[in-house]
Structure formats: C-alpha cells, structure tokens
C-alpha cells in the first residue's frame, strides 16, 4: 500500500500549500491583486555601433521618444484619449484605432501610440502628466546613420521583425515591435550587432507610476563592428560617381579588404527608420537607376575588353600563344564569310600579347580565343572567380554568367557557334560579371595569383573597445596560371597606362605605376558596317565604361573596378575615377622616382 500512502502524503502537501497561499497569505495577495501592482518594464539594449577601418563612427543610436499608453491605468479611457488628442493634434479615432490593432494581451503592457515624437510635443505631454493617467513617454534607442547615403548598400538598414520571423525561434531576444537588420552588414552581422534586452520587475501605484523596483536584469549591449571600408575613400568614390549610374569597388589586394563599395544612385537609410513611408518607397522602387540595387554585387554587366585578361591567360596557359607569338591586325578578322571588326578600324599591325593587351586589340584576342575554345575559356574564367559567387557576406549577391557549350545547349537547345567564341573572347556575348567579381579578379592578378574572399568586417568589439573577434582574411583560391604567364599579363596591364599606345595612358600619376585594363561594353549590338554617332544616341543605348586596375604595379596596395553605365568609353569615363581614388588612397609620393621621368618623356 506504499503507493497509496505516497498519494495521501503528496496531496496533503499540496493542500497545505494552498491553505498557506490562500488563507495565511491570502489577505496580502488579495491586496496586491487589487492594484495589479507587479509589472515588468523592459530596458532596451542598444545595438552595436559601426565604424570604418580608421575608427570613424558611421552608425550610432540616438534616443527617440515614443508616446505609450497602459490601458489598465488610463481610466477613463475615452477622456484620456480626448485630452491627449487635443495635445497631439491627432483625431481620437486614430488613437483608438492604434489601440484596437494591438489586440488583447495589452491591458497592463505599454502600447506605442506614436513613435519618435518631437521635443515640443514631448514637453507638452510631460507638462500634462497628471491629466493623462496611463500615458507615458518611453525612450527608445533608434538607429542613426551619420553619413546620409554613404555606403548605404554596404551598411544596410533595419526593419521591424515580422510574425513569421518571431515564430521561427531564430531571434530569441527580439520581441514584436523590435527591429532587426534587413539589408547590408546590418543584416549579415545581426547576431553580433543585436543586444539583449533587460528589464525591471517593478511595483506600481494605481496610476501606473513606479513605486519600487523589485528586481532588475541588466541589458547587454550589442557588439560594435569595425568595417574594412575607408570612409574618406568611399566618399571620394561616391563623389566621383556623381549623378552617373554605376559602381566602384576597391579592395586591398593583400587580404581582400573591401575599401570601397559604392553603388550609384544610393538611398538614405534614415528613411527606413520606423518603417519607410509608402510614398518614399514607391519613389525608390520606380527610379530607373534602381537605387535599392547594390550594383557591385547584384548588377551583371558584359565584361567587355577587361575579359581579354582571361583570354590572354588562357591562351598562354594552353600554349596556343607565347610571349613572342604575334598576330597581324588589319582592322578586322575574317571568320567564315563574316568580318569581325577591331575597335580600331585602321588596324594595329603586327603585335604580341603584351601589346595586344595594352592596345586592347580585338583581332589578336579573336584568334587567341578561337584557338583556346569556349569551354577552356570558361574553365579559366571560372577558376578566376567569374561566373560564381565571391562569398562576400552580403545577401542578394548574383553569380554572373560564364557560358559553355553545354550551357547553351541546355538553355537554348542549340549548339554553340564558333563565331560566338570570338565574341566571348573579347568579353561580349553571353558573358556577365559583377563589379565585385572583377575587383577580386584584378586584385588576384596584382597580388600574383591569390583570390581572396572579400572581407567587410575586420573585427567585432565590445562597448569598451575590447576586440572580441578578429575576422581573418580568407583565401578563396588561386588563379589557374603560372607566375611566368602572370608576369606577361602584368606587363601588358602596366603598358595600358604606361605604354606609348596604352588605352589609358592619360591617367598616369606622378610617382605611382598603375596597371589596369579598360573596357567598353556594348549595350546593344550593331550590325556590321553600320555607323553610329554615339553622341546622338539616346543615353540609355550608350555603352558601359569599365576600368579595372591595381597600384602600385609592383606591390599593389589597392585594386579597383569601376563601371559607369552608359559612360561610353572605359578610358574616358571610368579610368579617371580609378586614378583619382588611387591618388587619394596612396597620396603623393615623397621621392620622385624614375617612373616620373619616364612619364614626362612620354607625355604627348
């Protein structure tokens, strides 16, 4: 009968506990229940700050004042709302509708009536505190983006958490009404930036005013981020882009640090605080320049002549050409019964690979590409990081496209045409790349072969400035090319700027050797022999201008990819942007070197 005795014993304990709670301490609990006086007041934690690589503050938090109501205390509700409506200038119905929307579980919890009220209204409400039972002002830390529109795509913005995300259990410290990162670094580093809310268990009086704090849990602040971005350089890039649609990416070739990530046009992240208005959102959405797209990772462009670097590498590696092999360029290449033109209709004459890169000769690369073949070209492109994600820690990255014969068969149910290989060889046709991919690629050429995964955040630190986590550079792979062949290509790229016939010889800087490649991407295809006066074309039909480069050529500190949409020529529209950035980043050289002399001699 042991089991029976157990039950008798346990039930006696439970019953005695009931007697204790309801009879002995009943009076006390009855009194507490009359005033409903034990409440929770949450203490907001502040979100982590964001700095640039030189510890310039980019994003911080400012206090916003929210007007809240506790229904249980705001009695009689109608009178209170009437008085409040008089002060705020809202209609009573609007306020009541806000309360209605919040639903049932909110009798004793503060409920936000108006977010981010002005200081004037704050003062008025404070002054009438005693006529407004249950009305409180809550201070809410709110995001503040100090440099409006600067690096908006990189930094990102916040948005209110939705019901699905709350139910997913992925955000245990977030409650309804709170904001989480929605875009950019704010989104990808949400786990670091987010703080943990604290709270008070408090005793309140009949009007809901706090009499006593019973227990406290301190909030934990979010962690700060140190970006790899250089604020001054970023601003410079954005100024240089100006009204143009386009993008600039600058990387540190020695570790993949993202020094600049500019996409134009940009948007003001402060508009997203507390929910963007429908009108503003429509304007952003309908803008033909697509300000909400991060063009550095989302826009896919034909690489144009910048792709000749790949064709050159593939030709050298596949041994269809060497340092000394030459092709003759009469201004066109006859393939089948069609003439493929060189951009220089008078022809380049006899040239080798170094000269062909420097002068961007199409005919040389038609023939090189033809010998390499589409699939081998694709292999080298892929190995160089094109046609696949760079792995940058930002959402919405696009992979671009590097076509193969198998791809075309699958996509169009048609076999690959040999003529298409010619277009591919000079970066036209199906090829698509993002500016970031080109920056990663050119920086790998500059650092002699290492592809880095672009790094956005250097380190994560706590509010006291103690580094909690360093984010190490990550090697994503190596270029599929020997050092000897890379050296040949690097010579060609150097001659683009410093050779006598280089396509970007006008961007020379005193004391700094720049190696790069121009590109002019056709937006629509022209029929052979058809002539256009570019100046008369509609702007949206004009060519995109590319420039990719690194400097100083021998030991690169910066690698840049610039694209100006409809900028016409890479050499005239994009290259000067890169030049200005290099100048801003490296500064003026202290000792004039031999290069300067050489430079002066060759000025035309």
């Amino acid at each position, binding site marked *: 009968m042991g089991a029976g005795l157990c039950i008798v014993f346990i039930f006696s304990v*439970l019953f005695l506990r009931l007697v204790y709670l309801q009879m002995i301490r009943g009076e006390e609990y*009855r009194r507490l229940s009359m005033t409903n006086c034990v409440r929770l007041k949450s203490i907001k934690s502040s979100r982590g700050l964001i700095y640039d690589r030189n510890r310039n503050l980019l994003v911080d938090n400012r206090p916003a004042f929210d007007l809240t109501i506790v229904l249980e205390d705001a009695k009689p509700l109608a009178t209170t709302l009437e008085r409040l409506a008089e002060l705020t200038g809202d209609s009573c119905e609007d306020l009541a509708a806000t309360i209605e929307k919040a639903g049932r579980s909110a*009798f004793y919890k503060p409920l936000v009536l108006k977010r981010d009220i002005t200081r004037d209204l704050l003062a008025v409400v404070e002054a009438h505190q005693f006529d407004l039972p249950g009305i409180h002002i809550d201070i809410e830390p709110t995001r503040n983006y100090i440099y409006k529109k600067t690096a908006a795509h990189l930094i990102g913005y916040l948005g209110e958490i939705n019901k699905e995300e709350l139910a997913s259990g992925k955000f245990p410290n977030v409650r309804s009404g709170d904001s989480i990162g929605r875009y950019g670094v704010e989104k990808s580093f949400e786990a670091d930036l987010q703080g943990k809310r604290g709270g008070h268990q408090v005793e309140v009086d009949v009007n809901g005013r706090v009499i006593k704090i019973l227990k406290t849990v301190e909030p934990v602040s979010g962690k700060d981020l140190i970006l790899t971005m250089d604020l001054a350089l970023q601003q410079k890039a954005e100024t240089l882009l100006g009204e143009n649609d386009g993008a600039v990416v600058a990387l540190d070739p020695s570790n993949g640090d993202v020094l600049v990530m500019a996409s134009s046009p940009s948007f003001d992240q402060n508009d997203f605080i507390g929910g963007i208005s429908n009108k503003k959102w429509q304007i952003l959405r309908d803008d033909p320049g697509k300000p909400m797209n991060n063009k550095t990772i989302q826009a896919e462009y034909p690489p144009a002549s910048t792709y000749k670097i790949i064709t050159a590498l593939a030709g050298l590696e596949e041994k269809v050409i060497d340092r000394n092999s030459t092709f003759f360029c009469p201004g066109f290449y006859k393939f089948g019964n069609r003439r493929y033109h060189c951009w220089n209709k008078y022809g380049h004459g006899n040239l080798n690979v170094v000269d062909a890169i420097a002068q961007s000769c199409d005919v040389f690369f038609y023939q090189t590409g033809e010998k390499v073949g589409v699939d081998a070209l694709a292999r080298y492109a892929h190995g160089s990081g094109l046609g696949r994600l760079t792995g940058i820690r930002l959402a919405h990255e696009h992979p671009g496209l590097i076509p193969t014969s198998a791809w075309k068969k699958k996509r169009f149910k048609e076999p690959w045409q040999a003529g298409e290989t010619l277009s591919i060889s000079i970066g036209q046709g199906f090829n698509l790349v993002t500016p970031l991919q080109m920056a990663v690629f050119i920086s790998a050429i500059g650092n002699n072969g290492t592809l880095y995964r672009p790094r956005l955040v250097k380190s994560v630190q706590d509010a006291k400035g103690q580094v909690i986590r360093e984010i190490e550079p990550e090697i994503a792979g190596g270029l599929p090319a020997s050092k000897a062949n890379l050296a040949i290509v690097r010579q060609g790229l150097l001659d683009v700027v410093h050779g006598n016939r280089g396509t970007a010889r006008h961007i020379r800087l005193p004391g700094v050797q720049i190696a790069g490649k121009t590109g002019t991407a056709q937006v629509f295809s022209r029929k052979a022999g058809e002539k256009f006066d570019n100046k008369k074309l509609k702007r949206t039909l004009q060519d995109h201008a590319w420039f990719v480069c690194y400097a100083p050529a021998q030991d690169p500190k910066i690698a840049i990819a610039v694209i100006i949409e409809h900028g016409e020529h890479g050499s005239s529209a994009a290259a000067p942007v890169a030049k200005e950035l290099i100048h801003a980043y490296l500064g003026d050289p202290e000792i004039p070197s031999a290069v300067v002399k050489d430079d002066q001699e060759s000025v035309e």
Partner: protein
Amino acid sequence: MFDRRLISNFDWGFLLLIFVICILGLTILYSAVTAGYAGNVLPALFKKQVVWMAVGFVIMMGCLVIDFKEFGKLHLLIYATCVGLLVTTWLAGHTGGGSQRWLVLGPVRIQTSELMKISLIISLASVYADSISPEGLGFRHLIKPVILCIIPFSLIVIQPDLGTGLLLLLIAGCLTLFVKVEKKVLFTLVGTGLSLVPLVWFFGLKAYQKDRILTFLNPERDPLGAGYHIIQSKIAIGSGMLTGKGFLHGTQNALNFLPEQHTDFILSVLAEEWGLVGCGVLLTLYFILLFWGLNISYSCRNMFGSLLAMGVSIMIFWQIFINVGMVMGLMPVVGVPLPLVSYGGSSVVTNMVGFGILLNISMRKFNTA
C-alpha cells in the same frame, strides 16, 4: 463477441468521475479563455477543447473493444509506431516557441511526446510482467526496459523538451520501483546516476545549457521570465482566499498576466475565482481518481493488467503533482498540463486513452485467461 458479463462489470462510477472532472475542467477553461473579452462569442479555443473531449470519449470507448491483454501482445508494434512519430516530428515537425514538438496532420497538430508516454507504459508493463519475481529484478532484466526508455527520452530531449523527457523517465522509474528491483541493482543505479551528474555538469554542458537548468530549478533566477510567472501565479492563487472572487470575476485572469493561463497555469484561474473551496474540490476529485486507479491495479488478477493500471495511475499522478506544484511555486516551471483541465488536444486524448485502459482492465479483471 461482446461478452454480456463485460457490461455488468463495467465501471460506471469511474466513468462518471471522469465526466465530472471534464465538466469542471471546461468550466474553468471557459473563464480562462473568455477573460477580458467584452463580446459574447464563444471563443474558438473553448469550442476546440469541447470537440477534443468528445473525441477523447470516443477514443476511450474505442480502447474498451479490444481485450487489454492484446495491447501487451502488440506492444512492440505500438512502441515502434510512436517512436516513428517522434522521429518524424524531429525531421519534419512544426516549430513552436523554439522547439520542435508538433507533428502537423492536416488540421490537427499532435504533440507526439504525449502519445509516447502511454506506449512506453504498455511496453514496460508487458516486459515486467514476464520478468517479475519476489526477489526483485536483476541487472539483466533491466536491459530491455532501459533501451525502451532511452530511445524516446533522447528523441524528446533533442526537441528540446527536457520537462517531458524527465517526466517520461520519472514514470518509468516509479513503475520499475513498484515492480521491485534487487537491492544491489537499486544501489548501483542510484550510485551511477549520482556520480554521472557532476560529470555531465562540468564536462558535458555548455554555459547556456547550465543556465537554463538552473533557471528550471530556481525560477527566481529569471525575474523577467519564469520568476515573473510564478509571482503572478502566486498572487492569483492567494488572492482567491477561501471562496474566490466568483466565476468570471478573476481580475488577474482578466488582465492576462500569465501567458499560459489556459494551458499550464490554468489552476491559478480556478484558485482565483473559486478559492480554496474550488481547489479543494478539484484535488479531492483527483485523489479519488488516483485511488480508483490503484484499486483497479490491485484487484486485477492478470500481472500485465495490474502493472499497466499502475503505470497509467503513476502517469496521472505525476502530471497532477508537477503541474499543481509548479503553479504554487513548489516545483520547477515545466510545461506539464493539468489532466482534463488544461487546454490541449494531445493531452486530453492521451489521458482519455489512459482512462480507457483503466476501464478496460477494470471490466476484465476477473478474466485471467
């Protein structure tokens, strides 16, 4: 096929008792879910619960058709099905409140760990019925039961639902002790258990897991979460005093201080509105229910039936004790529902199956074949 004797042996009193508890449960639930509502629309949750109870009664009656001894023969099949359901929940379950406990079947969400309780009891009763001896069970007798427990326990703990997992072990442990084990086995088991605790604590758990367990044992550590619920629950209960504030007049209830007032904390609603008198009535009903269960166990001449009845009674007992203890601040805050009172279909059905088994054993207790 249906023996006339079965009807004459049917335990009408027990059925009436369950019916009375159900009615009381629905009354309290009605108050809990309508609190704070001005409208006179019958809340959806209440309707759902009525449907679940009706379904439960049908299932309970269904449990009577087959002789309970058949359950013993089929126990491995039942067990495998339930484990299968747990695995499915793990792989494809619905996540609620950060853990995967629910299996969605059309419009119905099943908490599979609830069904596992009954299945485990059937399996253990069946295994022990074969191995029971006056000297108690030896080590070799315990191999099977331990395996039977470990599988569902692990599957429930990874959901993660530590509370239900421990409850499962608690039920199994009590049944094993009731069957009696050899002294040396008892000491060894208790000894290993005690020595494992510090090992797991210092080497097996991460800081946040320890934190969770400490809070589980002492809700006061978390004044904004579990600790706050306990305080509100105590205020609600205490403020009911001797006779309560009256049906639908609970102020704490109406203000929704407790997020789980219609499920785990429903006793606080009863205590606030009906006072010590109301709680006393419910506890008395539960007390009678448990003794009825023990009586069925003791008077059954079939060993399997006797153990099965004991297992079901133990299950009901722990649910009541843990829930009532938690609401009054005597036990850790665990998600264990109050039988037939808390809202929840899986819990209602599981308990009804349990009562069906008790009725089944009761009406066939003279039939030893």
